[in-house]
């Protein structure tokens, strides 16, 4: 790694830390300045007087706002996100337990959506002007426009409740426990639970890479080196894969960051349709049961995740396309 690239990464990290800090501050203000007594929001009325005093002291809820803010920042940085009212457990522990489920679902879906999207996009570009292309584009646009939770509901009604091919909720059948994350990932039971949420998510995400790949391919196919390859009499498949597709791929890689950004919004909805125990479901449950510390913690972790994934996508892109110099970005 060169000096300029490591400096770029440090700069990027500093920028991300700044954004995260601003988000945490906004969150702090939303939660403290909302109508009503902040004590009510952060201390479960069912706690004993002693517990309440301990928590008030720990979060400094009896202090002026700026001191509370400093305490909040310190506690957040050290990973102490408070105590959930509803689950009577530390927020950080609850978040930590659900994080792998969200990562598996989101990353799995994004990767599969991009694989399918690029291949199908190249195929549709190749089939340009045919009835197959028109039909394919219509389906893709319709899927992009359909609310993902509604697609999930239809899949659930057909494949789970009517045909009984897949379970309707959760990550495991009753009584099933996994020894490790690895064992969970290869277990048939887990994959059967994952299937419907994953398909719903992929159908929602595939549109952008697909349409982008298609239009890039159409652009590239008109360029001189492709015409040249054609004149040399190379087989069509070889021109398509070796010459056109490779060059059409780069902008698709740029879109990766964009998709990861909005995939976390989609994740919240998909997790709730299929009762998938991830961060999105945790957030919605927390907000609807007025479990403020949990809502705050879950939101903060989702935001951090979005920001980290963006950084990752940026790194992948610079690695794919060395022409993008670190200094310029």
């Amino acid at each position, binding site marked *: 790694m060169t000096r300029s690239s490591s400096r770029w990464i440090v700069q990027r990290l500093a920028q991300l830390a700044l954004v995260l800090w601003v988000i945490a501050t906004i969150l702090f203000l939303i939660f403290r300045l*909302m109508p009503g007594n902040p004590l009510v929001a952060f201390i479960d009325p069912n706690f004993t007087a002693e517990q309440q005093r301990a928590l008030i002291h720990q979060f400094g809820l009896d202090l002026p706002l700026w001191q509370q803010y400093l305490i909040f920042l310190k506690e957040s940085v050290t990973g102490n996100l408070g105590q959930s009212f509803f689950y009577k457990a530390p927020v950080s522990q609850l978040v930590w337990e659900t994080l792998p489920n969200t990562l598996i679902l989101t990353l799995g879906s994004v990767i599969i959506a991009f694989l399918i999207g690029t291949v199908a996009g190249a195929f549709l570009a190749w089939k340009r002007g045919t009835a197959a292309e028109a039909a394919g584009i219509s389906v893709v646009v319709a899927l*992009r426009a359909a609310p993902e939770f509604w697609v999930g*509901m239809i899949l659930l009604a057909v494949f789970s409740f009517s045909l009984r091919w897949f379970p309707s909720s959760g990550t495991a059948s009753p009584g099933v426990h996994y020894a490790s994350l690895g064992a969970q990932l290869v277990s048939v039971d887990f994959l059967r639970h994952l299937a419907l949420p994953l398909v719903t998510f992929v159908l929602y995400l595939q549109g952008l890479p697909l349409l982008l790949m298609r*239009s890039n391919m159409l652009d590239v196919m008109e360029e001189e080196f492709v015409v040249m390859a054609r004149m040399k009499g190379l087989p069509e498949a070889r021109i398509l894969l070796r010459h056109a597709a490779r060059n059409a791929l780069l902008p698709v890689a740029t879109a990766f960051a964009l998709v990861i950004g909005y995939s976390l919004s989609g994740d919240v909805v998909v997790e709730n349709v299929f009762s998938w125990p991830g961060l999105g479901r945790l*957030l919605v449950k927390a907000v609807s049961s007025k479990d403020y510390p949990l809502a705050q913690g879950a*939101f903060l972790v989702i935001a951090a995740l979005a920001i980290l994934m963006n950084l990752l996508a940026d790194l992948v892109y610079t690695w794919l396309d060395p022409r993008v110099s670190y200094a310029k970005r």
Partner: protein
Amino acid sequence: MGAVSRPRPSLLPAGSAGRGRPARWGALWAVLQHDRFAFAGICIYACFLLVALLAPWLAPYDPQQTILRGDELMAARPPGGGFLLGTTNVGRDIFSQLVFGARPALTVGFVAAFFVVLIGTVAGIVAGYSGGWPDTVLMRLADVAFGIPFLPFVIVLVAFLGASLWNIVLAMALLLWKDTARVVRAQVLTLRERGFVESARVLGASPARIMVVHIAPNVLPIALLYGSLAIGWAILTEAAVSFLGFGDSAQISWGFMLQDAYISQALSVGAYNWFVPPGVCIMLLVMAGYFISRGYEELLFPRLRRQ
């Protein structure tokens, strides 16, 4: 073909209609004739707008009313027998709910898109034209807005401010302006160096006047393009928020209908007549937005037309 879509009508070469605005409308009409998709999109919007306006006359029942026939509650009826799409599990007419659901969808869509365009355009023009610290501040704000996960933010905000359509609109306005602002800013950076802006500056026009009179009309088309996409986003967001149970329960929306169906076990009893139609309506409306923005894009960037 190419010249008519230039952003500034008065810069049109002589002969291509001269007065400018009529030429732009003419080009719009040409694209509509040529692009069946954009035409279909406008037709879909017009239909839904009509349904929303005429809802009280089109809907056979009050959408909240539980319907009794004699002493019998008309619950979970299949389509037919006076109920075009059947009834819900507590005996409400699904078709009437669907008709009234067009109102919140269109309201949220248009109001949110209006604010997204307004805030995005103002921020983009100010950042691009003045440069310096306003630019830095606004673009860093855009970075923050980019880093905040959209739907989770809407949920948290709506949960605290109360469930209402206007709070959903507020949350969208707070986060979605960033895309419009970035594109508008990029456009302004090139406009700033153009001759007509330069001459206005030399003639002593104030920065405010230049921004309002000379720059704003030129970035409006591209801002409206983002606005037409924001309509779809807003409708989908309202549906998702209502589905998750944070919607305005006093108002029947398509998202609310889907949530109602979901929690009332409509999926396990296979009541497709209940949960399929609202999704189709959302899909049609969002697709219409895509179609229109596609036609609009062709109007702005004529090079696309050959594809």
